């Protein structure tokens, strides 16, 4: 847990919740992740399943598109590299190659985008034992905000704002791991297809 401590503000809260985001990013990229931008997002969720099971699911990136709402496709290139195709707020797609920068079995996976990424990004997902509550999963993402302020407004309008998106994606991960399915209130297959498209 020590590596997520917010040393600058002298407390134990996660870096992403610090009021001073500039300082938080400097700290995070100093020790946690490779720096790829000026925005830091982190979300934690408790999942009532063993750590090893959650890690194994996540480590196989081809499992992720159904829970990551905006991800159109992930092509696994080799043991460390993968190609991501993601919906952009404007309606098109953005793409990048991602490389695993750190991998500790059952504990964490860290990645960073390679040169030429449409949206430079990096991050890590950690799995920590939580006793009889299962596992605390913490996702930390650092990225370059596309198209500046305009992009931020656009992504909020289209609900593809990364902070909200990360939260929803972790909820879907939790649902799939705990219940074996992703919750939907659709009534018919047609509605479900529209909802997921």
């Amino acid at each position: 847990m020590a590596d997520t401590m917010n040393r600058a503000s002298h407390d134990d809260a996660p870096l992403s919740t610090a009021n001073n985001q500039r300082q938080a990013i400097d700290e995070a990229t100093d020790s946690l992740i490779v720096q790829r931008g000026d925005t830091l997002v982190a979300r934690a969720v408790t999942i009532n399943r063993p750590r090893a099971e959650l890690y194994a699911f996540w480590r196989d990136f081809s499992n992720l598109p159904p829970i990551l709402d905006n991800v159109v496709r992930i092509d696994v290139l080799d043991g460390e590299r993968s190609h991501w195709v993601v919906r952009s707020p404007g309606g098109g797609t953005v793409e990048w190659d991602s490389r695993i920068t750190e991998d500790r079995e059952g504990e964490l996976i860290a990645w960073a985008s390679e040169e030429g990424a449409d949206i430079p990004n990096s991050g890590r997902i950690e799995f920590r034992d939580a006793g009889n509550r299962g596992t605390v999963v913490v996702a930390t993402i650092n990225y370059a905000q596309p198209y500046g302020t305009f992009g931020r407004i656009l992504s909020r309008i289209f609900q593809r704002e990364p902070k909200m998106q990360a939260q929803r994606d972790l909820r879907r991960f939790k649902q799939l791991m705990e219940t074996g399915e992703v919750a939907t209130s659709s009534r018919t297959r047609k509605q479900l297809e529209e909802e997921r498209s």
Partner: protein
Amino acid sequence: MRALTWHGKHDVRVDTVDDPEILNPRDAIIKITSTAICGSDLHLYDGYIPTMMAGDILGHEFMGEVVETGARSTLKKGQRVVVPFTIACGACYHCGKHQYSGCENGLPADNQDIGQELYGQPMAGLFGYSHLTGGYAGGQAEYVRVPFSDVGPIVIPDGIEDDKVLFLSDILPTGWMAAENAEIEPGDTVAVWGCGPVGLFAVQSAFLMGAERVIAIDHFPRRLELARRFGAETINFEETDTAAALFEMTGGIGPDAVIDSVGLEAHGFFVDNVLDQLKKSTFLGTDRIHSIRQAILACRKGGRVSMPAVYGGFVDKFPLGALMEKGLTLKTGQTHVQHYMPALLNAILEEKIDTTFLISHTLPLEQAPQGYKMFHDNQNEVTKVVLKPGRALAAE
């Protein structure tokens, strides 16, 4: 299929819509045989609840026959089941503690944002109660899709009619949990505000839990009469100074436990709460909490306050000082229906509890719009409307 759909204020219609389908492995499709209109449905009818969309199917009190099951459903075709109004997964931390209404997986991920904003954490999903509670189609229809069918629905033995068990879906467990939260001790006097279905079931439950006296408070004579039938003493608040009467009736001590089953009467998210939240309409908050304020002031020192009544937002002039100075305990929450269903079904089978007295009107589903109107216009005579989709088919 035919279904009661919402189109706007005082505009509900029976439409033909697509049948529900199995979408997830734990789903089941239930053919509805009985479904009730809840008091909280009237707030949808009155247009108070935000995020309703034209065509939404209402209804969260229902039961029926299993006609289709997903690969991981534990139900079998032909079984009769009552379905809890809360949608809970049975696998998360809260379900593990039997706090089903706090289920973390009942709502679709995108529908969890608003609960997180309003309350800090999202709650379980609900059937037929706006898109704030998930946007799930309700059971005032011929068929309904039930998620997590291996956890929620309870199987009903053959030979016991629908009307005896239908209220296991919401109001009976809610009344029972209200009495349980009042932590009744033998010899206690319990005061109950509101003699709607939940209040009346709370009266029954309080006696079953050992209360010596129950004092029921309302202003509809017919509802007070029903409370009296179970042995309650009554106060008509339009004719009596309730606070003074409670003081005198308990020899100046006050009731040992008080139950507020009035509240905002809706399953949360009442429009004025949301407005309150936005600080646009604070005046609305001041007199709507009349019943809980009166209950806290009436309760004896060291007593218990149980609040099954639904509140959705912030309130003003809440007597926090009285709660503290008198050393009261306050317990509340949306009902953990799945937790209470098995024991209450047994109580019904053993004839310790009868809920059929509540039903004043039974109609075919096709006449649901008239049912809403009569329930809305005459709450004294109309205590509960039960709809029978099967009967509608037979009439066609």
